[in-house]
């Protein structure tokens, strides 16, 4: 077992497919970036709605969040792949099923799924700010929206950065589900290569590539966590003393 793992020939053969891996990696990163944007838009919208008083909107956001959090992302991908085109066909009375591009399926697949999680991160972040903060702002004559913008959200941001970054990391890893449905991402090419060569090395190469982007994100989570716990005064003093050191 170990012998075959260290076999240079197998590594060499697997690395011959590296250009494919790079292409897949590019797709993975593009899907991550665009999917993240969608997830953030949905997350911010639903997260804000969840903290408002409007019962109907709140219900919509609760249902969305529960649905996307409690069904596997793989099924959701298949839904976009098979279900959505069928629905579009029915809706617009088209003769032929409309095919969504693989990229579009990818970004909406991870975007809608992680949007549900990010909505919860944002809701809990907002709710973690004591009610007295909003009251203080309102009593000064700030409107609800101004109170949100100047008082609540700046305090929320610091708290939600760690879980938000964790979500980004999870989103990146979950793009690998694409390989099962539409393909073209890094996992897809790794799978293809391993299927062809029969050498496990292909998966290790892919894992290393995922690790190369995920590990820095995980480190970033740690930095943000430390930052959230830190007293702003100390940060300022540290900056000052560092400035003094230069002189």
């Amino acid at each position: 077992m170990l012998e075959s793992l260290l076999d240079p020939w197998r590594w060499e053969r697997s690395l011959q497919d590296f250009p494919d891996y790079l292409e897949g990696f590019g797709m993975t990163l593009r899907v991550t970036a665009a999917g993240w944007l969608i997830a953030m838009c949905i997350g911010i919208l639903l997260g804000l709605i969840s903290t408002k008083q409007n019962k109907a909107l709140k219900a919509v956001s609760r249902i969305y969040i529960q649905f996307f959090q409690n069904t596997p992302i793989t099924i959701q991908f298949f839904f976009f792949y098979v279900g959505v085109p069928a629905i579009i066909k029915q809706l617009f009375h088209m003769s032929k099923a409309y095919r969504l591009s693989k990229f579009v399926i990818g970004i909406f697949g991870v975007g809608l799924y992680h949007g549900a999680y990010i909505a919860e991160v944002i809701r809990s972040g907002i709710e973690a700010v004591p009610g007295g903060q909003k009251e203080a702002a309102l009593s000064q004559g700030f409107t609800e929206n101004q109170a949100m913008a100047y008082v609540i959200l700046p305090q929320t941001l610091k708290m939600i950065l760690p879980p938000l970054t964790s979500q980004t990391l999870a989103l990146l890893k979950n793009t690998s589900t694409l390989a099962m449905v539409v393909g073209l991402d890094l996992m897809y090419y790794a799978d293809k290569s391993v299927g062809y060569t029969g050498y496990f090395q292909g998966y290790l190469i892919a894992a290393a590539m995922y690790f190369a982007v995920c590990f820095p994100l995980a480190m970033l989570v740690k930095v943000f966590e430390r930052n959230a716990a830190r007293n702003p005064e100390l940060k300022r003093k540290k900056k000052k003393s560092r400035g003094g050191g230069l002189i």
Partner: protein
Amino acid sequence: MESNAIIRIEHLRKRFGDLQVLDNINLNIKKGEKLVILGPSGSGKSTLIRCINHLEKPTSGEIYIEGEQVTQKNWIRMSRDHMAMVFQQFNLYPHKTVLQNLTMAPVKLHKVPKKEAEASAMEYLERVGLANKADAYPQNLSGGQQQRVAIARALVTHPDIILFDEPTSALDPEMVNEVLDVMVQLSKEDITMICVTHEMGFARQVADRVIFLDSAKIVEEGTPEEVFTNPKSERTKAFFSKILH
């Protein structure tokens, strides 16, 4: 009487579910008056003061500030133009320095140029004895210091009316006086002060009038002298016999 009333409260009622917290409150407060609201906990005194600036929405009844009714539409503007509030838990903005806590509303809401707002903020910090803490963050201040900053923050927008909601109740005993001193100083000005408190000494010293709330109603009203030494209602007598030594 009505012409010089800065606040007029008519038939104010507030209920939370089945609980009647305020029941038919009628109250006129004169410009520059120092009013202290007393009463046992749960009597509705905090709710009353919070209804005045609509942090709590009245179930029915009207509140007029300078003759203009406070409504669901205009309450934010009314707060901005006329009132400021000091809270039991201070509620300073923790992500802002002390100075920024004071300049935020003037700069963002009242369109005061930043330099001017900072100069004025420093004056108010000077008055509460905390000019040296301008660049500190609230969490590095003691409770008493935070509350003094909160008072300065309330004053910096030049309100006609300042509402105090149990400003010393969350403080360690040795910090109560530094806050009360600032409030006593403030009471010498012509600002209208409405204060919910348990500090009887303070009430005696600064109040023009004291009202005593019990079970959602005003049961006693008068000068501190009248209310403390010769309370009319049994409820008030019982209350004072418990808390005055």
